[in-house]
Structures are given as C-alpha cells and as structure tokens.
C-alpha cells in the first residue's frame, strides 16, 4: 500500500476540482482524497464543504457515516478479516481472535510500530472459500491458522 502523502492543501483542491460538474460527487471526492492522504483529514472537510456548497457539519456527517472513511491514516498494511456468517461457519471468528490476541490488538487497532491495521469487514463475496480476508485490497481465502499467521507475519515486517 503506498504511503499516505502529507497534507497538501493545493493538492487537495486539485483533487476536488477534478470532480467539478459531476452529480453527487461527494463520495468520489472522499475516496480520491483518502487514496492520496490515507484518510480524509479534518482540513479537507472545509475544502469539500466550500466546493459543494455544504456546511462542514454535512460533510463531516458523510465522512463519519461510512465505515471506509478514516480521519487518521491506517497502518502501512491493512488486513480486513471477514466476520460475516459464511466465514463464521468455517471458524473464522476463532481464527480472527487468535490473530488479534497474538498481536495484542482489538478490531480497528494498529500495531504500535504502525505496520499493520486489523479491521473487521462483513463479507468480501468469497463465501464459498471461507474463511476469507483482504490484505491491502488483495483477496485471500481458505484461510488456516498457519496461512493467516504467514500473511500477518509478512505484513508486519
């Protein structure tokens, strides 16, 4: 996962400007901002509000509504473990718990060295190959304690 860029107001303005004239452009803008800065920084909220003629509260309301948008960048790698029913039926919860316990994390936490964030997700559509996960956007499935440990070890480096 590319490292998040430092806040740059000019760049943020340029990202927002690219969506000029697009209907309902809020989510595409927020996705693009997060792709560059690793999160939707509080400073960006004001710029988005100005551009879309909304209040900051309205923009903040959108940012905070959706699970995907962060107000702080995640760790260098993001591991999303599926916690939905199909993965539960294949013992996914126990697998996930082992990983969290070994790392000393709770859901959504990042390791102290900033290498790995572990998040819950509810279904990746890989339900016939459960349990499944996604590491930096790449799908992995038919997880076993050993294969998941290997993924975590690689990502934690």
């Amino acid at each position, binding site marked *: 996962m590319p490292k998040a860029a430092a806040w740059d107001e000019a760049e943020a303005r340029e990202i927002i400007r690219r969506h000029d004239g697009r*209907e309902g452009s809020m989510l*595409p803008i*927020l996705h693009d901002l997060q792709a560059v800065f690793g999160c939707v920084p509080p400073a960006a909220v004001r710029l988005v509000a100005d551009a879309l003629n909304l209040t900051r509260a309205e923009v903040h309301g959108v940012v905070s509504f959706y*699970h995907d948008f962060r107000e702080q960048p995640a760790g260098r790698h993001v591991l999303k473990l599926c916690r939905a029913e199909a993965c*539960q039926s294949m013992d996914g919860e126990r697998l996930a718990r082992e990983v969290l316990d070994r790392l000393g994390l709770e859901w959504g936490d990042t390791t102290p060295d900033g290498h790995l964030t572990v998040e819950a997700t509810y279904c990746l559509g890989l*339900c*016939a190959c459960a349990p*499944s996960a996604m590491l930096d956007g790449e799908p992995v499935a038919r997880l076993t304690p050993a294969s998941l440990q290997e993924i975590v070890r690689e990502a934690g480096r």
Partner: protein
Amino acid sequence: MTTRIFVPRDAAARAVGADPVAAAIVDEARRLGLAVDVVRTGSRGLFWLEPMIEVETPGGRIGFGPMTAKDVPGLFANGQLPSAAHPLCVGRPEDIPFLKRQTRITFARCGIVDPLSLADYRAHGGYRGLERAKSLGAAATVEEVTKSGLRGRGGAGFPTGIKWKTVADTTADRKYIVCNADEGDSGTYADRMIMEGDPFLLIEGMTIAGFAVGATKGYVYIRSEYPDAIRVMERAVVLAEAEGLLGAEAKFDIEIRVGAGAYVCGEETSLLESLEGKRGQVRAKPPLPAHKGLFGRPTVINNLISLATVPAILADGAKHYADLGMGRSRGTMPIQLAGNVKHGGLFEAAFGLTLGEIVDDIGGGTASGRPARAVQVGGPLGAYFPRALFDTPFDYEAFTARDGLIGHGGVVVFDDSVDMAKQARFALEFCAIESCGKCTPCRIGSVRGTETMDKIIAGDRAEANLALITDLCQTLKFGSLCALGGFTPYPVMSAIKHFPEDFTRPRLAAAAE
C-alpha cells in the same frame, strides 16, 4: 498451433492462488517451447475446484483443479500439453454434475469468455437482446420483461416489468437506471461473478432498461469490498464507449460509483442517498424511486442480477424464461452455496428445488463432514432453517410461508458445532453496527436486543428475556423503515423457534466467571 488455457481471474479464484498458477503456466510453456495462450476468464462458480483451469482441445475444454503452481509442471508431463492423465483432471467441465444439472441463463457465459473481449461477448450471443429490444420498440420491451415474470433478484421479489412500466409512464427531463451492485449479504457473490466474469452483460441489460423507459444515464453502485469487480466494470465501460455501445451514439451512458462500506446502502433508497453524496440514510416511501428517485427524477433501481437477466429474456423471448420455475417464481435463480459446505459454488437453476436437495445433493453436505444443523438462506436478514424444514422449495412464496426469505439467493450452511444463540446475537449486533440511525426501532432496538441476548447467553432469566426479545422483534418487524430493522427478526426468531435448546442451555463459561 497455439493452445489456449483458461485461468479464472475471479476474485475468489485469485484468493486461492489463481495468479501464481497462471504465471506458472506461462513460465512452463515457455521453458518447454510450447505455444500457449493464457486467457483470464471469470469463474464457472465451482469454487471447491478453484483455481480450476481449462485447456482447449479439439474435443472441447478439459478442466483441472484445484490447481497450485506446484501442480503446473506435472501438467506438461513429457513436454506435452496437459492430458487427462493428470491427477487433478476433472474432465469436461460441462460433464461435472454440479454444472450439468444447472440451467444457466444469466450465467451462460460466465467462466467461459474473456470478460473484457467484446468480440467474445458477441460471439457468445451478446447484444442479441438489445437488438431484439430495438426491433420491438420501448413499450413492447417493457411488456416482454413483464411477461417473463422476472422479479427483483435483490430479495424483494417485486416484478421488474411493473417497475419499468411505472418509470416509462412518467414524463421528466431526465430519468435514471441505477444498478444495485452493493452485494452485502454474507453468502452471496452472484453480482461479483457477473461483474468480474461477464461485465458486458450488465452493460447490455442496463442499456435495454434505458431504452425501454427512456433513460439516458445509468449508474452502477458497487461496494468497495469488491475492488476486482470495480476494476473490470470500469474497463468494460471504457471498451463499450470505444465501440459506440455507450455514449452519445448509443444514447446511454454508464458511470461506475463505489460505495464506502455501509451495508445499509444495499437498501434502494439509502443507495440513492449515497449516490447523491449524502449519508446513506433510508428514505420513507412513498414517493417511490420510480416516481422520485435519484436527484428527484424517475429512476429504475434494480438488482444487478435482474438487469443481467434481461438480455437473455429479450434475446430468447419472455416465454422461454417464464416456462421455467414454479408458482409465481418464474425463471431461474443463481443459488449461492457458501460457508460450511463441501461443494460451495454458484448453482443457477429454475425455482423449485428443495432446500434439502440444494444442501445435501448439490452441496454434498458440510465441508467439515459433520451433520448440517442450520442453514441461513437470504443473507444476514434471512431465517435459519433446521433440517426439519429441508423440504421447503426454493421459491419466494414458499420461503415467506415458513417465516423466511430467499433474498439474493445466498445459502450458508452450518454444521452441528454452531451455537444458535450466538448466531441470533450476531444478527442483532450486525443490525446495530449497520443501522443507518434514521428510525428508532432499528437504531436502539438492535443495541438493546444485543444486550438482552447477552443476558440470555449468560443464563440470566432466560425465559423472561426471551419474551422480551420476542416483543422487541415485533417492534422491529413492524416499526422499522426498511428491511434492515424489519428483517433482523428473521434470523433471531428462527433461531429461537427452531433451536430452542441453544437458548436455555446451562453455560459452563458463564458459570465459571
């Protein structure tokens, strides 16, 4: 002569190692000097065999799976092309009972064609549906969809043709076609497979919808958990534009939009809010989206599978489709077998198979080899069915009659190690996590329900608390604005009704604390 070898690029196939297999085939063929062309396809949907590769031979394709990169050199034993002697050979895919027993209409091309080849799409019958629609005219196209009996495959089961007619009958400066590809139900992946395996099918279906109702702009709202599907769809739109199949000439545009991790955005009005750039909060109905939908304009909002089934209905006629099925459930349904099941995968079949046939015969029972104890049908808001109800036919009305729903066709199997009290608790917790917050029963009821279920699990006045949950579920069912709060009682109450022993069991862990 170059031999074509097909390797799926479906996300689930990639998740179990399809990419290294494809790379190993290229390497090995080069090393042996064999002329091999690796074509990346969608998945056939036989996921227990993924990564399943297929080699083109004069007698048709021969499948091998589940492959790993290590199995690739053995494939080319004696420096020859793969032969049926390989231990992972599964023969002709079409002869595998799981595929042979299906009636593939919506998924006819998936796993066979190169998803991003318009030539392939056309060679396999693509755009015949749109051609016929154009020759019939807009009104007759709507009529054809109505006659096919196609109902909303997202789960609500509303007749698609009637929805289209409502929008067609409006007058407005702009109308929209919105494809709901926010496939959030656990145990479902049919939308994902089409987007990754046959994206032009959706583009054709939406174009037909636009033509039929007089809309010139379409949106596909894809959940962010599907990065592969997003990539393929975006590319497919560009390719279709380049050939004039979308854009000014086609009088129809499609834009891909990406969700942001909110399950509730699969609810149609919440999805429209999200597309407009707002919090994904549910709207009260009426007005219906067909009258006042996206940006206040008349909008057809359909599930992806509904739209992807339209081209075949138009191409082969409504009757051909309507002849399949049972009762008021006409045509086929892509059943998605998932979870603890031996043969997990997509099974498209006419309505009417019983749940037992689906789980035991087609699915082959559990993956763990233990007895199947509970089956959740229709996603996180669907009911848990015990073996005693395995005679229920897969049909909208039959499932409703047994306090369940077929939803988007997901079937998640659990073996006898499942704790149904935990599953009921999860249903309430999930509702609490994903509630949009607009209506009180869902926003607060889900939280209170989770707390009450915790008490039951801890053995704290189980009987009184179960009565409280039952009462709360009534409030959720009748007082919620949308299906999230309204249907959460299905998994909760079905678990309590069919598996009562799990709710009153003395809890060793609780006692020890």
